[in-house]
């Protein structure tokens, strides 16, 4: 049975609906703020100001966004193949291992511009490996990838704890982390970029991996829409039967796609590990892998949507920290609630406003609607 609603024009599909969803999410979040006895307007002002009001704010917002772009792209690539990669968190976590191995080995051998590509390769390779195992289990044994990738998050967490309290920890140190890398394994900051826009700032964690994230967004776009591999990924994602008919090997496409997805998630580790903390710590991913799912959903799995969605979530992270600082009633947990609402409306309830919007648009501008509904409806 065909859906009784005609198709929306692209501008409404990609622009208006996410905006409406976002607006409603903030409205509901405002109610929550009201309930704890604070002013929603003031909270919203703080959020925006905290995120974009100062050079430092922008720096932090983009720093968080960098991580979310990587994990969002990772989830999106898998989505295009019809796979739900919930393992971004774990893949990013072990990706940090790749960064650390390169940095600890070569930080006093090579300059940063040699270490950077090596670290990219290291993080991507280990992230890809971590995604490859669930992919093979799915392709060959039919183990559902949602379950296996979730479980691999736990395995990743345990593995990293073991490594960070054991082999990777310097002698005589009490902290579960590696030694601090030498300066030649630090990514350059992008403070100058912000200064160019006239912001006078103290140092922010924003670093070169932000540029890499933007480059990867373009690479993912090219991969999905302009290469043969991307064509095969999309074919399989829309219709595994059609992919089989077209001679696209199921196991091959699942494994390759998941490895690309894992590699992107793994690269996320570059941002905090090489760009900011300059050492491998416990829990440096801090949920970015999961936020990536929301970012991919909100960005409609398109890089052009993922980048703004990632910046939005970066803003929630940074602005949220600002709110909890100024408004004692609003704790970090409240920020998580607001993020949850955004995810709920942008992701899970994505289709809530679609029918009414379609009806409204149909009455306004019938010409812009798809012409297929009744055809498929026919006898």
């Amino acid at each position, binding site marked *: 049975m065909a859906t009784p609603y005609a198709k929306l024009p692209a501008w409404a599909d990609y622009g208006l609906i996410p905006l409406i969803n976002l607006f409603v999410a903030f409205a509901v979040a405002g109610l929550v703020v009201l309930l704890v006895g604070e002013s929603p307007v003031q909270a919203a002002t703080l959020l925006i100001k905290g995120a974009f009001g100062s050079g430092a704010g922008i720096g932090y917002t983009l720093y968080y966004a960098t991580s979310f772009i990587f994990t969002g792209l990772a989830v999106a690539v898998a989505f295009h193949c019809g796979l739900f990669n919930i393992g971004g968190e774990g893949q990013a976590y072990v990706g940090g291992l790749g960064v650390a191995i390169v940095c600890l080995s070569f930080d006093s051998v090579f300059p940063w511009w040699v270490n950077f590509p090596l670290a990219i390769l290291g993080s991507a390779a280990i992230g890809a490996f971590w995604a490859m195992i669930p992919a093979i289990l799915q392709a060959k044994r039919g183990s559902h990838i949602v379950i296996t990738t979730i479980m691999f998050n736990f395995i990743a967490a345990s593995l990293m704890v073991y490594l960070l309290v054991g082999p990777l920890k310097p002698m005589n140190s009490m902290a579960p982390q590696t030694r601090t890398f030498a300066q030649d394994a630090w990514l350059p900051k992008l403070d100058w970029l912000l200064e160019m826009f006239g912001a006078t700032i103290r140092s922010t964690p924003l670093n070169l991996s932000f540029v890499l994230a933007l480059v990867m967004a373009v690479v993912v776009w090219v991969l999905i829409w302009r290469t*043969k591999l991307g064509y095969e990924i999309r074919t399989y994602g829309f219709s595994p039967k*059609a992919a089989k008919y077209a*001679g*696209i090997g199921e196991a091959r496409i699942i494994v390759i796609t998941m490895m690309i997805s894992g590699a992107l998630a793994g690269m996320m580790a570059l941002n905090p590990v090489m760009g900011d903390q300059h050492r491998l710590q416990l829990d440096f991913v801090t949920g970015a892998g999961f936020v990536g799912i929301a970012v991919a959903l909100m960005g409609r799995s398109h890089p052009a949507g993922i980048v703004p969605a990632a910046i939005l979530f970066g803003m929630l992270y940074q602005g949220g920290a600002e709110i909890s600082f100024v408004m004692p009633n609003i704790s970090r947990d409240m920020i998580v609630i607001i993020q949850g609402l955004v995810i709920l409306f942008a992701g899970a309830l994505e289709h809530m406003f679609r029918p009414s919007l379609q009806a409204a648009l149909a009455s306004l501008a019938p010409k812009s*609607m798809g012409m*297929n*509904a*009744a055809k498929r*409806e026919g*006898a």
Partner: protein
Amino acid sequence: MAPAAIELKGINKSFGAVHANRDIHIEIPKGTIHGIIGENGAGKSTLMSILYGFYQADSGEIFVDSKKTEIKTPNDAIAAGIGMVHQHFMLVENFTVLENIILGAEGSQLLNAGIARARAELHRLEKDYGLEVDPDAVIEELAVGLQQRVEILKALYRGAEILILDEPTGVLTPAEADHLFRILRMLKDEGKTVVLITHKLREIMAVTDNVSVMRQGTIVATRKTAETTVEELAELMVGRRVLLHVEKGEPKPAEVKLSVKNLTVKDSRGVTMVSDVSFDVRAGEIVGIAGVAGNGQSELLETIAGIRKAISGSVLLDGRPIDVTGAADPGELRDRGLAHVPEDRHHVGLVLPFEENENAMLGYHDDAKFLNGPFLNIEAIRADAREKIQKYDIRPADCRLKTANFSGGNQQKIVLAREMEHDPGVLIVGQPTRGVDVGAIEFIHKQLIAMRDGGKAVLLVSVELDEIRSLSDRILVMFDGRVVGERGPDATEGELGLLMAGVEAREAAE
């Protein structure tokens, strides 16, 4: 004329900009069988969905037994005495007949009383209408024709006075269809009103009293069946004269292109679907495989195309084996000149959310002309798609349009264009005209004949017996996974019908 059982006045229904039903007026007299015929997309199903409460009309009125009736849900329709037998049965497969019949009409929280009542009522209905079926049989063990009977009983059990049947014969053998028509006539004699939706002209002529023809959302004519002809109805449906018979010359069969030997295929549950099938297809001939849907034709086709694995047997393409029991790869078979138009174009032959040009290269996307190294050559892909659109008259002529937005006939042309344009030596085709409008059927048939005349080997699987008979040079009939007979193109429908029903096979076994 008897009073109207149903009268529709000025029904309008739009989906977005598409006017699916436009100012429909129709009057169906009580105690008659009324046919509604039209091409796919003419709006038949939409109209019936409005009558059965799946959709609501944007405007217009429905009168049942001369009383204005609001039908907002299927429950309202049932209350008004309207019953529907869907094209795809709405039965719970692992329930018994009785359980299915009382589903939603249990009568109370405890089932026993309801079941007893239903059993008695079922008995009466069986006697009155000759609708015999074992009330304790489990649905999935029943033949399709019997399952359909359960659907009819379900409607009657709910007190239906008006019965709507949506494409009821698509899944039936000719003999089963005849039986269905006898039941419909019996229902009519008992004073029930039957509305029969179909695109098969023959059925309209065989069983209806009156017929309404729909085209592009409107009723273009209503005729007494006795006063019209197949040709007139076809012309009304399409809006122009249609060649119902395919013109073709004598076949010139040459060397064997495709040779199937002792092929046996099982499905994922281990049930044998194709059993020890052997045949050859020569260059320059069309071999048709007739059979009721579900007798192994689909599996046979998929196995030859490399999509499904065989248990045993072999297939030779141009004398070289296809590894059907192992790693046959559809991509490799394409390179060897085997083109495949699959039965299910929506899920297999096309990726509906893709743009047309993306589908125009599906399966041939390894072709160097579409690629620049690992990158797609977008310009070449679109140019190639535009060329095919022009050559096969695919409408609308827009290679950037989403494939789902093309009509069934044009979607099928997209598949055909793709598979034929690569000049294959062997073409295997499943249900080439299922869900395709009459105008496109004519075109597709001509293309298939042209392939044959061009010296290609064509293997055709279709459940439309007319199609098999008019296109094939040799006809193989499949029943229960076996080829039970081979006939020439002049075989009568009755003869093929018996083979399709497995009559001869059963007699031989006894």
